[in-house]
Every structure is written in structure tokens, then in C-alpha cells.
């Protein structure tokens, strides 16, 4: 186990390094510079600015100092936002994005699993058809469309929830709804399919033959086995939800990290692009690692370390 974790950790470092390198060179391949602007600036000032941000140095030495900044996790000041460092942007924006992302994941997983399980238990019944219709709609609708829709209905027409900004739990409802529906629909469909398969297994029949209570059979015997495919897609789903927050944050005027991320690309704000990308990829890689660990806990057949030579 320890060996596995060390192995994974080393691989994580390599992965992050590759992402960081790709980001760096792609970023510099985009024409333009952070110091371009509509107004003409004094060439002397321009030169001084370039010197200050080390943009006058050759790309290779910029790359080296960039790698240094990754290791120390200090990306320096933002070019476009005076008085802000990349770290301060992240520490201000990320908790909000993280909160939104986690609430979304939680809502999506819990409601998706319940919906999928109900659909499987009432296979070909009314509940099944309703749940699956809902799931198809949920998968087909992009979250930004859903976002405008829920704002119009729940904030505009009904006035139940505030339409935008991030202040109280009430403010969280609409963005979470917009963001969670898609993943929830995917999880519901996946749970249903996998549950239907598990329910036909002999060990379910055997649990019934033991005279166990029905809810116990579903939770202990069926659900745990049916969760494997759901856990598998959790990793990539985390990625899509966290990137999905960029759009949703924009629509709901949430001061999360997404705003800075998108803005930084438009502005060629090099330190911010690099800082946020490295930060996000690190976060995702760690999350994927956690998913793998959960996988091993759920299914004892999956070994996280090398074989010990057990039977079969």
C-alpha cells in the first residue's frame, strides 16, 4: 500500500510537470502579450514593464523560473490586476469554487444514486420511465441553458431564490441545481444499469434465501456492488464539474476562481494562467488518486499493490 502510494505520488508529479510544460508553451504560442493594449504606451515604460515581469528574457530562462515558481508555489503578482498576487486570487476564489463544486457533487451523487436505484427496483414501472426521461433531459441540456432557465423560473417568475451572487445558502440553490443536473442524470442512468445487472446475480438471490430484510439486501448486497461504475466515472466527473463551474460562476456572478481563469486567458495574464492551471491540475490529480483508493475499499478484489499470490 505504501509502495503504491509512493508510486502514484511520483506519477502525479510527472503528470503535473507535463501539464505545466504544455500550458507554458501553448500560452506563449498564442500571439500577443499581456502588455499589449489599445492605448499606445511609452516605449520606455513598455520596456521597463517587460523587464519587471521578466518577459524580455529568452523563453528557456522564463521556463526555468516558471518551474521554480511551481515548486515554491509562488506565482508572483498578476500582470493585469495590480496589487494582486496569483496566490491571493486563488486563496480568495478557490474556496468558493470548491464549495460550489463539492455541494454539486454531493447533490449529484446522492440524488443520482437514489433515482437510479428506485428506477432499477421499479424496472419498467412508472418510476423507472419518469426517472429515465428526466435523465435524458438532464444529460441533453447544457448547464448554461439550464442556468438561464432556472433563473427565469425560480428567481424571475416564482421569486423563491436569489438570481445571482454568493452570500447565503439560499444563493447556492440555483447554481447547484444548474450544475448538478447533468452529472446527476449520468449517475442515475449508470446506477440503474449497474443495479439491474447486480440484482440478477446469484448472491442477491442467496441473500433473499437467507431471509434478510429487503432494505438490507439493497444497501449491503446490491448497492455496494452497483457503485463500482459510478466511482469509476467520479474522477472525470469531478473534472467536468470543476471546469463547468467557470460558466456557471459567470452566469450567477459568483466570485469563484472560474472568473479569474477565463479572464486571465483573455488578458494573456501569464502568471495567473499558469498558477490556476497548475493549481487545478494538482487538485484533479489528487482527486483521481482518492477515487482510486475508494475503489479499492469498495471492492476488495481490486488490489492497490502487487499480488500476494492468493487463490484464483
Amino acid at each position, binding site marked *: 500500500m505504501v509502495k503504491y502510494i509512493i508510486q502514484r505520488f511520483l506519477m502525479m508529479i510527472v503528470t503535473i510537470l507535463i501539464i505545466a510544460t504544455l500550458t507554458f508553451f501553448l500560452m506563449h504560442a498564442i500571439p500577443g502579450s499581456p502588455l499589449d493594449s489599445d492605448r499606445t504606451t511609452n516605449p520606455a515604460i513598455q520596456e521597463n514593464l517587460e523587464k519587471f515581469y521578466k518577459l524580455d528574457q529568452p523563453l528557456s530562462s522564463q521556463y526555468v523560473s516558471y518551474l521554480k515558481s511551481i515548486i515554491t508555489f509562488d506565482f508572483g503578482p498578476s500582470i493585469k490586476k495590480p496589487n494582486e498576487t496569483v496566490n491571493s486570487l486563488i486563496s480568495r476564489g478557490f474556496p468558493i469554487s470548491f464549495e460550489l463544486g463539492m455541494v454539486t457533487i454531493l447533490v449529484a451523487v446522492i440524488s443520482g444514486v437514489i433515482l437510479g436505484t428506485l428506477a432499477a427496483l421499479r424496472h419498467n414501472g412508472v418510476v423507472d420511465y419518469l426517472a429515465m426521461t428526466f435523465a435524458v433531459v438532464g444529460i441533453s441540456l447544457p448547464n448554461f441553458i439550464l442556468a438561464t432557465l432556472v433563473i427565469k423560473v425560480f428567481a424571475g417568475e416564482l421569486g423563491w431564490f436569489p438570481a445571482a451572487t454568493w452570500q447565503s445558502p439560499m444563493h447556492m440553490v440555483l447554481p447547484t441545481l444548474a450544475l448538478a443536473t447533468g452529472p446527476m442524470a449520468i449517475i442515475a442512468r449508470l446506477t440503474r444499469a449497474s443495479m439491474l445487472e447486480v440484482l440478477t446475480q*446469484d*448472491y442477491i438471490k442467496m*441473500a433473499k434465501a*437467507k*431471509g434478510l430484510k429487503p432494505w438490507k439486501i439493497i444497501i449491503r448486497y446490491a448497492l455496494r*456492488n452497483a457503485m463500482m461504475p459510478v466511482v469509476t466515472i467520479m474522477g472525470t466527473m469531478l473534472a467536468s464539474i470543476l471546469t463547468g463551474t467557470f460558466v456557471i460562476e459567470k452566469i450567477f456572478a459568483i466570485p469563484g476562481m472560474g472568473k479569474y481563469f477565463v479572464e486571465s486567458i483573455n488578458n494573456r495574464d501569464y502568471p495567473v494562467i499558469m498558477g490556476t492551471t497548475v493549481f487545478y491540475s494538482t487538485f484533479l490529480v489528487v482527486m483521481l488518486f482518492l477515487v482510486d483508493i475508494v475503489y479499492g475499499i469498495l471492492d476488495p478484489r481490486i488490489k492497490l499493490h502487487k499480488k500476494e499470490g492468493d487463490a484464483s
Partner: protein
Amino acid sequence: MTSKVNYDEQQLQNLSTKVGKKMLEVQDLHVTFKTYGGEVHAVRGVTFDLYEGETLAIVGESGCGKSVTSNAIMGLIPQPPGKISNGRIFFKGKDLTKLNKNALRKVQGVDISMIFQDPMTALNPTLTVGEQLTDGLRTHKSISKIEANKKAIEILNLVGIPNPEERLKQYPHQFSGGMRQRIVIAIALICEPLLLIADEPTTALDVTIQAQILELFEEIQEKTGVSIILITHDLGVVAKIADRIAVMYAGKIIEIGMKREIFYNPTHPYTKGLLNSVPRLDLLEEELEPIEGTPPDLFAPPKGCAFAARCPFAMEVCDYVQPETTYLTTSHYTDCWLQDERAKGLFSE
């Protein structure tokens, strides 16, 4: 060895000394399944009794309704699409078909338990063997975890699993096929059932392991006095451990009798056909005789005897009228027109 001798009186006596009272009475059981193609009449009037401490084998080819019969006793017929459309199953005087789900659960796993065919799929891969052994026990009996574990170790010892204390903490994938089947048997035995239904318990196992498992059954029966219903298509298994044999064909029991009566004095042409299609070590030259044809379509069961179309001795009456039960001895009876008084002498073998 003299065949064609009726051991009935002697055997019945043996039966009543070895076994006690009637514990299970299945009367005219009918099970149907609704499918897109129509209604399948899987079990069409099965009647048999089971005594305490005996082993009854139900044999027959695939699709003859033997598993459905055992599932019906176990209350495992999925409803819908399945339905017990007629008949009664008395277990210790209680009609199981009339019990509600909660009452049925108190019988399932406690008084009647079941062993499944494939030990590779019958165990939940995500729970330890110990958890799977004890959860039935803890559902039905108010018993502490420590007590339950003690009982589990005891039962693993009984089914012949070495180091039970260690093994309890392991997962099914850490066991071999034969060991898994022993665990499945242990799970079935842990609540000390009166009746054990074994649905093809050796089919998925290697031949050497099969023999071990069959010996285990005999040993368990000796120690606990449990009655066993053994569902199988393997006549070798039957010859080894059964006391009585019921032969099923197309949803009906067509012949039932003591093991010797069925093996040495089979009367129904289907039973004879089954026995002839088993390879024998003592008759090397003889070729195996297959039973020609296929079983009837149970979407539309035939009006007369279901075997008539494949039967080399079929008479006109067989196509139109269901044969009645003929009692050959007190323990041996068959549903075949050939045994009718009026048909005697038509075919002299």
C-alpha cells in the same frame, strides 16, 4: 444383485426408522411465468412429500421445472412475472403459499435454506465471508457479534475449512471453487435448518471436488439430521446420496420411488431413457442411447402425456389423456398409461 424385486415393505420400514415425520408436503403445485411470448407453464401439478432426515433427489433435464419447484418452496419465485397459480406447500403444517412476506422471511434461511449452483457467483464479492455467514444468523436470532462469530467458526469447522478464525476475515475471491461451495453450504447451515434445498450443488465443480462435497452432505445429514432436497441432472450424484428419487419431465413428476426402485426397476419410458443415456463402466461395448426428440413447448403443454411424442411405446390414449398415477408399491409410483391394468401385456419386453 437381484433386480426387479420390490423392496418396498423393507425399505419403507427402513425409511420410517431412519426418518421421522412428514415435514414437507407439496400438493398439486402449479407455477406460471408471464413473458412477452405468452404464459409459460413451468410447473404443472407437482405433488410429493418429504420426511425428516431423508434425501430426496429431483432429477430431470434442463427446463423440466426442477429449479422452479425448489424456488417455489423457498419463496424465491419473482412475482411478477412468476406466479404460484395453484397448489399448496405445507411445511410443518403451515401453508407457505399463504404466508405474507414477513412471515415467509422467518421460514427462509431459518427452517429452510438453499444452496446455489455456482459458488463463484453465489457469494457477494464485497463482503467478508464472516459477514456473509453471520448476517442471516443475526437477522433471525438475537445474538451478539461475538456469539455469531463463534457459531460461524463452529460451522466452518463442520464443513471442513481449515483455520476458520483467519478465514472469516477473508473475501470470497481468496477461496478456491470447492472452498467457496463449502462456505455456501456453511451459510445455508448456520441457522440450523430443518430442510436444505441444494440446487445442482456440484454442477459447477471439478469431479474430485464433487465427490468431496457429496461426502460432506452425507456427513452433515448424519450430524444434524437435516432433510435434503437435491436438484440435479447428474444421476451419478443421485446414486451416491439420495434415499428417494423423483423424476421430473415437462413440469410434472412422472415417476417417484426409492433409489433402488428407480435404478433397478424403472417403469416410465423416460426414466428408462435417462438411465440408458448414462455411461456405464461395466458395459464398455454398449453405446449410449440418447432420448430422441426435445421436450414439449411449455407455452402450450400437450393435452395428454408430455412424453408421448418422444416415447417409443406411445399409444393413442397417451396423446389425448393425461395418465393417472399408478401405485406400483407403497413408495414407488408413476404417471404412465403403460402401467394401467388395461395396457398390461401390450408390450412384452
